[in-house]
């Protein structure tokens, strides 16, 4: 393979920077004072973040987002892994039909569940609670499908050996299947966490109490508080936006390869 041309590489990197420039500039702007921004000078400050975290309660929204996305990821993975194990290793009456019902959820547009799920949670008294945010997001057909495909690739002889030693199915799942599925489970965990972190329409519907806002709702409200763009305090809004995207960007840089590989595995299988 010939070494890459430095000119082409330079151009490609410049194109990449240009592509991300709106986001990069928004992060830069969040460290500027409002005066400096509007007069076009440079004046670094952390006051936008202090304001967002303190007066505008973004510390609380951050906590809410972490709790909700964390719970959805943990419970969602547990539920999907158990089902994937059964669909990969057992043939039972109705297994094809039930697996079909799981895969079909990938094709079902989620908007049709919006009003009924709101009514269900209202009836259960779960609107304006963490449970109301978490429960409808638990079932993840894609994760179950993906993990089942992965588990089918693990040699059955390993299960058999464990059963010979008198292990229960739960123990085989815990001691054999899960340790061997770690890369797939990690990819799916990231995928679920990020989707839930960025979820907007459901918290918008299910949450009215300000102290239960997730970051997405808090950011949208902060931006929309003052319509009429002359009044918008852009550096403050960008600080809130930076708080919303930075955890994902940092996580992305750390585990980018896992995530992209996970996406690719899901597409090809």
């Amino acid at each position: 393979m010939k070494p890459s041309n430095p000119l082409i590489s330079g151009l490609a990197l410049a194109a990449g920077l240009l592509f991300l420039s709106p986001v990069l500039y928004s992060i830069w702007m969040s460290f500027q004072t409002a005066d400096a921004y509007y007069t076009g000078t440079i004046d670094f400050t952390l006051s936008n973040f202090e304001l967002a975290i303190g007066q505008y309660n973004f510390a609380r929204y951050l906590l809410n987002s972490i709790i909700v996305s964390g719970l959805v990821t943990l419970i969602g993975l547990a539920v999907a892994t158990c089902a994937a194990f059964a669909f990969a290793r057992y043939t039972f009456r109705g297994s094809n039909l039930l697996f079909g019902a799981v895969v079909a959820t990938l094709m079902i547009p989620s908007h049709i569940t919006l009003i009924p799920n709101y009514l269900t949670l209202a009836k259960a008294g779960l609107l304006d609670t963490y449970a109301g945010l978490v429960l409808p997001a638990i079932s993840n057909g894609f994760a179950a499908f993906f993990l089942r495909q992965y588990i089918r690739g693990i040699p059955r002889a390993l299960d058999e050996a464990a059963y010979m030693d008198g292990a229960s199915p739960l123990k085989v799942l815990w001691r054999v299947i899960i340790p061997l599925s770690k890369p797939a489970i990690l990819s799916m965990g990231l995928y679920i966490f990020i989707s839930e972190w960025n979820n907007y329409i459901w918290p918008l519907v299910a949450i009215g109490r300000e102290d239960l806002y997730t970051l997405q709702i808090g950011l949208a409200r902060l931006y929309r508080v003052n319509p009429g763009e002359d009044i918008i305090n852009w550096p403050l809004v960008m600080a809130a936006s930076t708080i919303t995207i930075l955890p994902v960007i940092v996580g992305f840089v750390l585990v980018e390869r896992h995530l992209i590989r996970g996406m690719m595995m899901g597409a090809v299988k």
Partner: protein
Amino acid sequence: MLRRMTPYLFVLPLLAFIAVFTYVPIVQSMNLSVREWDFLSPTKPFVGLDNYRLLLDSREFWNALRVTAVFAIISVPLRLLLALFIATQLLRETWVSRIMRGALFLPAVTSTVAIGVVFSWVFSTDYGMMNALLKSIGLPKIAWLQEPHVALWVLIFVNTWKQLGYDIIIYIAGLQAIGPELYDAAAVDGGRKGHVFRRITVPLVMPTTYFLLMISVIEAFQVFTIVDVMTKGGPAGATDMLVNMLYRVGFNLFDIGVGSALAVLLFILLITLAVIKSRVIGRKVHYEA
């Protein structure tokens, strides 16, 4: 006995959640779509197809359907073409192409609300990046998000910017699965680049295209967040999408009957599109060995 129950116990939690939050709601939506209800009143009288008739007679519905269709018809092919082209350029495992893949993929995992807010600034009339650029080359300002003919294009642009990286990654996976033999053969036969692209690359990644087409059409018809943040469907309904209308009817006007009828219509539309696609394109997907 217990042994026979084992697999059922393992799948039970997932199926219970799917039943309660996905399948039962479809039936509930259908049931609510033929009733009149406002969330509060104790009765839900049956009104037949009145809610559907009301929708089909309203300009609001046809406007939202047209806007959503335009959004989907423009943005889906645009995304896929751009993504396929860029993917073919980023196939080699060099550090430049890895960084480029990362940069292009980053928006796909970034919060749509934050992207909406950032691009609201980019396209804001007085302080935005776009108008600053126009000004620097001596062109007049454009009210990007206030101009009915422009706002939808801005949304298509932003949506493409966000989703492109995902399509690229999936295409790279598909292209890497093709393998070099056919390209080598084409090179021996002296095939030109454009020709090779049309005759080898495009047909062989058809399964990937089909997969992306399926998910991106469903996604395009359900677009909500970017619109809610950037334009709220305005100006004058020029960017009002079906799900934004659904949210407004259901949760601002509390008209559960009409909102559910709209949800069911959109559901039927998407299922129909899926069937048509599998008929038309499904036949062309069997290139894979």
